[in-house]
């Protein structure tokens, strides 16, 4: 199972507590992971990616294994520790005041 940590606003919106765990793929890529997340929680559609273009929203970032995956193409395979559940995939609101 892949583990996803959502920011607090999105956890409230999706009415989840703690990490989300779900299957994605195969292959387990950025796109298949976000597809699976939005399929499980339709209320998150439009909050992480644009409804139409499916591009990452500008103030959302993806971190995992101490790497910034925000600018990787959607077909990028998830790092092995994320795909196996050893490490979480972090959806983060960009550091921009607030």
């Amino acid at each position, binding site marked *: 199972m892949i583990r996803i940590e959502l*920011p*607090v*606003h*999105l956890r*409230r*919106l999706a009415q989840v507590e703690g990490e989300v765990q779900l299957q994605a793929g195969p292959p387990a890529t950025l796109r298949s992971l976000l597809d699976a997340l939005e399929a499980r929680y339709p*209320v998150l*559609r*439009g*909050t*992480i990616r644009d*409804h*139409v273009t499916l591009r990452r*929203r500008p*103030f*959302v970032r993806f971190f995992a294994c101490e790497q910034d995956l925000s600018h990787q193409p959607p077909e990028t395979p998830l790092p092995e520790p994320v795909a196996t559940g050893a490490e979480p995939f972090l959806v983060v*609101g*960009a550091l*921009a005041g*607030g």
Partner: protein
Amino acid sequence: MSEVRLLVGTRKGAFVLTSDGKRQRWAISGPLFAGWEIYHLKGSPVEPNRLYASQSSGWFGQKIQRSSDGGSTWEAVGDKFVYEGNPGTHQWYDGTQRPWEFKRIWHLEPSLADPDTVYAGAEDAALFRTTDGGQTWEELSGLRNAKGGLWAPGAGGMGLHTILLDPTRPGRIFVAISAAGVFRTDDSGAAWRPVNRGLKSPYQLPDPDAEVGHCVHRIAMHPSRPDVLFMQKHWDVMHSDNAGESWNEVSGNLPSDFGFPIEVHANEPDTIYVVPIKSDSEHFPPEAKLRVYRSRTGGNEWEPLANGLPQSHCYVNVLRDAMAVDSLDPCGVYFGTTGGQVYASANAGEAWNPIVRDFPAVLSVEAQTLP
């Protein structure tokens, strides 16, 4: 006994304030959607417990929330706001062209007849409509044909902020956009035309009398006289008695004719309220005294209403959607400030009391009068 419910949108969530008809003691619930910007909430006139809220965030985009029990519980409904076709470009601040880009919903206006039909005013400016309670939204894209390429953003963005539904002509809708002006449809949103004759915007437009481009901050209507409109423009308070075909200035003796909200008394169609602000670069009250101004003559002759409002060192603003009236007698008047105060008057503005003093910056106030 009647009850009043105020729906307050702020920079960091929404609040619901309720009182009995005396309007002296208020119960406060919230914040709802804490941490999100709530530009606007509004209830259906035909089903008052049906509420809609615009919830947005610079990080996570636009959500629309709906309640069927007066705000106790909410569910997220549709939020896919997609411009029809290729929307083209509009003017940017420097006069260059820039593509239309959806940012947020500024204002929600439920239908006068159907609780599942709601109009939504967007930034970048567009009018959307749902007929299924918010599940799906379609753009009334004919609006953009009214010289959309010449519209430009005001300081707060290019938002469609006011939607007035004519209670006597179901197909007639007025909208106002900063900075584009007022537009009217008579066929339920298919065809639109600018109705800005008489507006003058020197120093803001190269042609002060231009057909579009005026920074209209707010328009208001009394339901008993839908052809009579009042406007707070960037500068100037204006009046039209022919459904926007022409406008004349009624700023009269106001200490400043800059401001954002304008409201009409619920029971006196010639009585209107504004909150003068010093200037476009100094968004605070003249002389640092917070005063609502009332005209009982449809403008030109204004009186200050300051009893209970701060009369020194006051540097708050009152935003365009942050003033409302109830329909009791005497009429209740309410407004919220960028400093987080919500003021109430249970006697048409003669005296004011703060319901709260320390909310986040208030973006919108709506009043519902409940049986």
